[in-house]
């Protein structure tokens, strides 16, 4: 699993990367939106954890571009800036999940694994349709994959325990 963290708060994202590493999730880190898009051109990650408010390019713009150019990449928004509108827009652009800082590290790790699992399932389902000769369906599945639904449905029990 290849995970990219995008956040301009260097201390925060470095520590986050270390902690995810301790939980078996290896990550790369970049600090702004343009760097994230450049990274994606070079090596496509499976999951991106994306901050919204960053210098230069706003995280939502990164998500918008990725949804057009790399729709298979699953994006987990992690922001301290969230508004209702941002959350709605993130869902419209098919972000896998929307979390607010500070968040529990194990919850974030679970969401990242969930996003990766979802991506694999979509890829496998698309491959199965392709193998059956249903190329249009396969193409649609690969292109327009709809996340299972974000916060609260993938891990309902855990959310209930949060305070």
């Amino acid at each position, binding site marked *: 699993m290849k995970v990219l963290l995008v956040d301009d708060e260097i201390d*925060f994202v470095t*520590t986050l990367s270390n902690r995810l590493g*301790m939980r078996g999730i290896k990550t790369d880190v970049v600090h702004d939106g343009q760097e994230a898009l450049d990274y994606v051109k070079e090596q496509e990650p499976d999951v991106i954890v994306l901050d919204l408010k960053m210098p230069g390019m706003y995280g939502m713009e990164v998500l918008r571009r990725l949804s057009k150019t790399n729709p298979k990449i699953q994006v987990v928004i992690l922001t301290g800036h969230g508004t*209702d509108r941002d959350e709605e827009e993130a869902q419209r652009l098919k972000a896998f999940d929307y979390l607010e*800082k*500070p*968040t529990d*590290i194990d919850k974030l790790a679970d969401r990242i694994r969930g996003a990766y699992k979802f991506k694999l399932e979509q890829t496998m389902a698309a491959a199965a349709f392709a193998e059956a000769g249903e190329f249009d369906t396969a193409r649609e599945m690969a292109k327009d994959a709809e996340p299972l639904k974000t916060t609260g449905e993938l891990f309902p029990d855990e959310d209930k325990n949060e*305070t």
Partner: protein
Amino acid sequence: MGETQAGQATGRASTVQRAGDVEASPGLRAAQLQVLSRTLANVAHDIQNHLAAINESAGWMGDLLTLKNKQRFGWISRLFRLGKRHSDDIRPFCIALDAIQKEIGQGSISNKRLGGFAHRLEETLSVFSGNKALEEIGDVLLREAAEKGIHLEMKLANGEPMIETDPPGFQLAVFCGVEQIMDGLESGDRLVLEAGVGEGRYQVQLTSSRPAESLGLPLRDPDGQDFSQTIVEELGGQIWKQSGDGNHITTLAFPLAVART
């Protein structure tokens, strides 16, 4: 020299006084509100980032302590049954880190509400969660009530009913309504704010332990009308009062959002 200084001081004071007398135009007030909103939102965002960084650092320390403990004592503990002793060694640190993270969590909740409130100041007609909007002003109201010794209880609506109106107007109406009632209450009195859906509207009921007639001077607009009533009506809602069984209830009702497909 002394006279000059006194003269300058007087001049400054009168300048300040004249500036204060200038009545701001609605446009200027709107611009001020916009600046205030953005400033507050940015400050809340910065604070949230700091809290998140502190939270991660505390968590990282906890991770390292646990890891070091496992590395140092893992197999030795199992062999000599020292598990309890070494976990006692790190327990005080874990307790301190838990306390830090708990405080960060609480601070974060208040700060998110501040950020939400700030963002709403710029919004006009929109669809939003009535509960969230009430939570954002709840902290201030609870604090004021506590200072006056009033027992203010907030009960939010079940589910997440969405309202369609002007968010800052909604918050101002409820805020003024609560303030009006609290003005007339005394230490030890009780006030319950209960939100829910009734008669196809989002209703905020304010139930107090004193009759409405003795609830102090209400905030009034220039026409002498109850201020919260003016706002509620401008927002397409209604406000009414009723009494019975020792309770005195003011209800503010707002239009619910039309279900979106």
